[in-house]
């Protein structure tokens, strides 16, 4: 597929400094919490301190007496305001269980942080004070914390309205899995724990809602990644007609999946604003968010690889236990099952069996966190390949090369039934090894082992791929997802020749305004500065599927390109009319339409825009408008890949892991803005490394989050992370005209196994074959202790 009359690239592929930055570096921002409306009231929530309890009584009367308090409601008070519970849009199996999830709990609380009452006061401080005067009586119930225990006979229930703690079992078997394992020469089996993480976007969530004034429209501002999805879902949850609800995502300070949801507080603010007739604001505190905003990961992964005598892979078995938490949020159950297409990764095999059990516990719900299902799958396969290489006595790269899809084999239909359209694992690997100094580091490693250096060196490999560009709508349909994966763009040619691009994506740090300007400027042949990109307001961008899953460029950028192509096609008709030439004789380049063979007969796209605005003289068979819309539905996912190499120094005396060097060679296809792409890789690496070394959400046996703030949940600072060396190879995607694959999650997906493989590699000769995440000093030291006590760790 190629773009219509593609003009020369002058903006695409080169770094343009971001248009977004000026207001961000000067503090002229519009974060949701910055919005103040006349008469605005402040909302604070009363949350359960117990992981599981019956709520026997909620008394808000004392709170109502507090200074500045305007209203206070229990869950029962508001129960009639909900047209439905908070939505889960991904019923992965027909028999999936999903507890009713009211924005305010009524008779049972199911995790610490579950909201039970709300107070509304004139100031933030008064609202916070008043929450302490709401009296809630709880009758404690046993807390379900451990996933496997939750599935055992006789386990207490995380939700007393259900008959078991299992939400679903989802299975997909490709190929003859029993044959693959029965005839295997070697099988490597491991259990990995992909620990629970807290996304921690630096901007806390915040909601402002203004009730109708001069029209029937209610406006809700939210720190969200998904204004369009939110509009529809809130309309359904709160019984507000969709056309009377406007949702705005103003400046949004990071998301990483945590703002890809429909949250209780959004529904509560919407209902309260309409009920009280006053604007309301709620902003979470960080500690509150750690309870009330979704968590990520939290899977037990039992995985096996079956090999032939020649070390080629026969098949893979995957059995997952995925912690849903207490409720199913927007896409909670779908996150782990994305792994069904990813465990085979870049490797050829004949059979893949994937089983996932979704389990309820009395913990904060999990949902999409940067990578969503793919980091977990990539971690397991890339760790398992290393373990298999060790068991088979071969170099980890050798085993990978033997099994990966060769570049000449693309397009390649994988065992999981999706077609990888392009890739070149050899090229990325060769480049990464060279930059990394692989052979030299192996030599130093040997030397340190020989000398018994207390600081050992390890080398970790991750040759990853992922599926991006969510998503072909028919595929989503086949997976029972509740919506499509298309994206929309509009291009408006203004009379002065300036351009407005309206996108259905909703950026929160990714630089869409800049990149979309580059695409439109080249496609239309207008100056980059003449393009403005509008987004994130359902009154402006009326249609969209928003931003997550590394989809925005692949699908949203594609829509911008197609909409621009339609503008050019219309303008070409007008040009032919005005230049009195046949349309087939009109050439378009750099914003100029000229008659083939008569270059002096030409006109610019800006002049045509003005002419169409005046509408005095235009072709009879068209409307006087160049404006165009495009809704594109990708025919395939895109498959970024790359080779990441990590060198760690592990202090065997203290257990401290230090990353000495990190090389990431990514193939994300064609690149629109190299600087933005590099920045996305950097940020992804930081989060993936953070999972490997620092972060873990821990619950105690009673279901209390013991890592309840940034004091105990260790988000790394600049001082805790290394410099990253990044480079690229470029194998264009074939499923979109831009040739792009997506880059938002690549670094996160690739880096976690690279780091842990490096830690294990450093300690392998000491008997360490496993390393729980995070590889904290305690976990490293305990693994070393276990190994030296004779048992394999």
């Amino acid at each position, binding site marked *: 597929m190629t773009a219509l009359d593609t003009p020369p690239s002058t903006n695409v592929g080169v770094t343009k400094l971001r248009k977004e930055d000026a207001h961000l570096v000067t503090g002229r921002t519009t974060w949701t919490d910055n919005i103040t409306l006349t008469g605005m009231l402040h909302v604070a929530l009363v949350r359960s301190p117990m992981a599981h309890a019956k709520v026997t009584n909620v008394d808000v009367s004392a709170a109502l007496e507090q200074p500045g308090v305007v209203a206070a409601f229990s869950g029962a008070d508001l129960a009639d305001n909900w047209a439905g519970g908070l939505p889960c849009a991904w019923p992965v199996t027909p028999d999936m269980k999903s507890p009713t999830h009211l924005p305010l709990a009524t008779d049972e609380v199911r995790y610490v942080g579950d909201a039970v009452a709300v107070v509304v006061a004139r100031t*933030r*401080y008064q609202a*916070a*004070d008043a929450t*302490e005067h709401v009296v809630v009586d709880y009758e404690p119930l046993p807390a379900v914390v451990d996933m496997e225990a939750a599935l055992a006979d006789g386990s207490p229930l995380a939700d007393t309205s259900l008959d078991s703690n299992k939400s679903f079992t989802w299975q997909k078997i490709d190929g003859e899995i029993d044959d693959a394992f029965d005839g295997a020469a070697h099988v490597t089996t491991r259990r990995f724990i992909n620990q629970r993480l807290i996304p921690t976007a630096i901007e806390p969530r915040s909601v402002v809602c203004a009730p109708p004034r001069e029209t029937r429209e209610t406006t809700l501002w939210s720190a969200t990644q998904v204004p369009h999805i939110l509009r529809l879902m809130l309309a359904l949850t709160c019984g507000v007609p969709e056309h009377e609800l406007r949702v705005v995502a103003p400046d949004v300070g990071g998301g990483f999946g945590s703002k890809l949801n429909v949250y209780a507080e959004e529904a509560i603010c919407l209902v309260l604003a309409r009920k009280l007739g006053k604007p309301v604001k709620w902003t979470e*505190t*960080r*500690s*509150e968010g750690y309870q009330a905003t979704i968590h990520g990961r939290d899977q037990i992964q039992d995985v096996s690889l079956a090999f032939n005598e020649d070390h080629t892979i026969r098949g893979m078995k995957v059995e997952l236990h995925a912690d849903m938490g207490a409720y199913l949020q927007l896409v909670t159950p779908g996150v782990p099952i994305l792994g069904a297409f990813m465990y085979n990764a870049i490797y050829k095999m004949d059979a893949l069996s994937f089983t996932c059990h979704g389990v309820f516990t009395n913990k904060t719900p999990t949902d999409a966190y940067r990578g969503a299902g793919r980091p977990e799958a990539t971690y397991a396969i890339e760790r398992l390949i290393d373990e298999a290489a060790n068991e088979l006595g071969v170099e980890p790269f050798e085993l990978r090369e033997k099994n990966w899809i060769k570049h000449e084999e693309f397009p390649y239909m994988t065992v999981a039934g999706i077609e990888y359209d392009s890739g070149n694992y050899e090229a990325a690997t060769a480049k990464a090894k060279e930059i990394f100094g692989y052979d030299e580091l192996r030599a130093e490693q040997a030397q340190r082992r020989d000398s018994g250096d207390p600081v050992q060196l390890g080398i970790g490999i991750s040759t990853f791929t992922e599926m991006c560009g969510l998503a072909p709508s028919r595929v989503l349909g086949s997976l029972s997802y509740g919506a499509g994966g298309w994206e929309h763009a509009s291009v408006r040619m203004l009379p002065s020749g300036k351009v407005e691009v309206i996108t259905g994506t909703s950026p929160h740090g990714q630089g869409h305004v800049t990149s979309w300007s580059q695409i439109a400027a080249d496609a239309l042949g207008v100056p980059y500065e003449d393009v403005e990109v509008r987004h994130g307001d359902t009154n402006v961008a009326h249609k969209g599927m928003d931003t997550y899953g590394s989809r925005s460029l692949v699908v949203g950028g594609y829509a911008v390109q197609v909409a621009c192509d339609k503008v050019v096609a219309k303008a070409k008709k007008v040009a032919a009319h005005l230049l009195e030439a046949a349309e087939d004789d009109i050439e378009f380049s750099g914003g100029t339409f000229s008659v083939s063979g008569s270059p002096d007969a030409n006109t610019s796209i800006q002049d045509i825009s003005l002419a169409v605005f005046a509408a005095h003289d235009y072709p009879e068979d068209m409307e006087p408008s160049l404006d165009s819309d495009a809704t594109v539905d990708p025919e395939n996912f895109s498959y970024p890949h790359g080779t990441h190499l990590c060198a760690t120094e592990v202090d065997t*005396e*203290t*257990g*401290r892991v230090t990353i000495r060097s990190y090389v990431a060679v990514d193939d994300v296809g064609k690149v629109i803005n190299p600087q933005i792409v590099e920045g996305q890789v950097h940020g992804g690496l930081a989060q993936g490394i953070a999972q490997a070394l*620092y972060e873990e959400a*821990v619950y105690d046996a009673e279901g209390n989050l*013991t*890592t309840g*703030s940034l*004091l*105990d949940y*260790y*988000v*790394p*600072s600049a*001082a*805790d992370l290394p410099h990253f060396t990044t480079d690229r190879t470029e194998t264009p995607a074939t499923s979109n005209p831009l040739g792009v694959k997506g880059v938002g999650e690549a670094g996160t997906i690739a880096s976690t196994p690279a780091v842990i493989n490096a830690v294990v590699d450093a300690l392998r000769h000491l008997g360490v074959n496993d390393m729980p995440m995070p590889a*904290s*000093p*305690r976990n490293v*030291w*305990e693994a070393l202790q276990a190994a030296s006590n004779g048992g394999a760790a």
Partner: protein
Amino acid sequence: MIPATFDYIRAGSVEEAVSALTEHGDEAKLLAGGHSLLPLMKLRLAAPEVLIDLGRVDALRGVCELDDGRLSIGAMTPHQDVIDNDLVAQHCGVLADVTRQVGDAQVRHRGTIGGALAHGDAASDLPAALLALDGTVVVQGPSGQREIGAADLFVDYLMTSINDDEVITEVRVPKLDGSWGWNYQKFGRVAQAWAIVGSLGLVKRSNGNVEEVRVGLTHMGTVPLRATAVEQALAGAAIDGIADAAEHAAEGTSAPTDLNATTEFREHLARVLTKRALTAAAG
């Protein structure tokens, strides 16, 4: 995120602060830099009814030399001023080096030496340093001043021997001559985190031997501790005895277990870090 309400008293002098403390008793808390107290108040883990702000008591800031040869550091001296002070650099550089590892830059600009010591957190860096230095604090109460040695200051978890009606006015530390070396090994999960374990080694060298040694341990019990067994094992010994002596570092400690470390791991870290601190201090 939002502290509960309180009455605010801005003390103009130590005397005013003492009289306010006397009047309000245990309902009152002193506010120094606020970097221990305000976070607790924001999470509503502390909710004093009266807050007495020492921020305007200028007499509590600065460093001077005492007639007895020690340094006196005003209790309200911010960490950064301790780090930057010439007298501290000249006579007690170890205090500057430990203080440099407290919190992060912004915390060091607001947090004060007196506030950190009065909070008495065994996981923070300065209590163990004061202990290893055999420093003292001077407190002023209704009945006048008294000086409390570090060994008597830290009583239990977040508890000091400073009475409710007393204010720390000074921190006193000895001057160390050029034969002293020191090193602080702070071991945490991330750069800005509290120490899982910290070990401060101070070594006075004499002709290739260790004449005197002091070891202060952070987060090895409910109070900061001295590794007395190490000190005894090493006093007068050869420098190459450090590794063996450091094996005693966990003796007499009562290290807690938490997410970052078991008691056993903390004891191990105390030995390793003490060996490293003393080796660096003696080098």
